[in-house]
């Protein structure tokens, strides 16, 4: 896993796991890697992963079964709702950035369409 050095490792891992969950690669109710395994996978300190899991648990995205380990929240509706909130906040940030370049509503939609066509065109 690649990390940016000027952002905390914990926040980068948090957003990685969120994207895995929202993207459906970690399905609702699926077991996720134990702290140590995941730390070894990311090559980071296990305490950092423990912190990330604690935060995700607080947000209700994962839960801990005291004997079986950590799991993604089994309720797809909750995941969908949280995904929506996450996407909206990402979008807000993104639009704020573009707005700095003078992109207005109209151009924004145009850009969104064009960039989609471009990526389709490449395929």
């Amino acid at each position, binding site marked *: 896993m690649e990390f940016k050095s000027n952002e905390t490792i914990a926040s980068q891992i948090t957003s990685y796991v969120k994207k895995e969950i929202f993207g459906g690669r970690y399905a609702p109710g699926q077991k996720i890697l134990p702290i140590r395994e995941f730390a070894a996978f990311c090559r980071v300190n*296990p305490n950092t992963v423990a912190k990330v899991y604690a935060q995700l648990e607080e947000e209700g995205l994962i839960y801990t079964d005291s004997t079986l380990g950590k799991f993604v929240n089994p309720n797809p509706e909750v995941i969908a709702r949280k995904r929506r909130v996450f996407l909206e906040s990402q979008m807000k940030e993104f639009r704020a950035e573009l707005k700095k370049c003078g992109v207005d509503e109209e151009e924004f939609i145009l850009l969104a369409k064009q960039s989609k066509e471009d990526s389709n065109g490449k395929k």
Partner: protein
Amino acid sequence: MEKNKFGGYSICKKYGRKVVLDGAGFSLERSGIVGIFGLNGSGKTTLLRLLCGLDGNFQGWLYKTDFEDVAYMAVENEFPIEMRVKDCINFYARFMPNADTDKIFSALAEANISTRSFVRALSSGMRQYFKFLLTVHSGASVCLFDEPTSNLDVNLREKIAQTLIREMDEDRIFIITTHEIKEIERLIEGFFILKNGKLSPYYDCEEIVESTGKSVVEFYKEKVNEK
């Protein structure tokens, strides 16, 4: 070891007239992987040797430490080169009764290092990895690693990182000295900088990145070059 502090304070050490440590001090109360960073010649090795009881000739105080519960990976080769690897392990286990020799044997096998070879037949990188394995699997609550990854190839570096992650647990302290911070930046929780014979306050990696927006390496470079 009980849950007491590890470290010391007002530590001074001279070699002849040369002052190496000049009132250095730190304490660690909880478990974790911690770095001690400093330029070459800043006294990192000297400090570690005091902390594990190898060198008692200094001024200052250490918190009560059971030296048998501290393992130390030195930079230089500690073993007679005419000894076989397996004899070294058995010898080591006599001093470190909690050492997990099975783990040492299996890790060596995995790295294709024969335990029947003589130490002299091992490359310097293999010797270094061997020393690392003895230290990390020593069963000691405090493990001091002096430049564990310098001069190693990518595979052994990766093995060391993975082993540190797997062997870390809530009642062990791993202290790593290095001047190649990039290598262990993501493994450590925090660090001290050793400079002009003194130790900086403890810096928490996540706090540094969050509050300064700089990477640990950038932060260190600034601090170490500050007048």
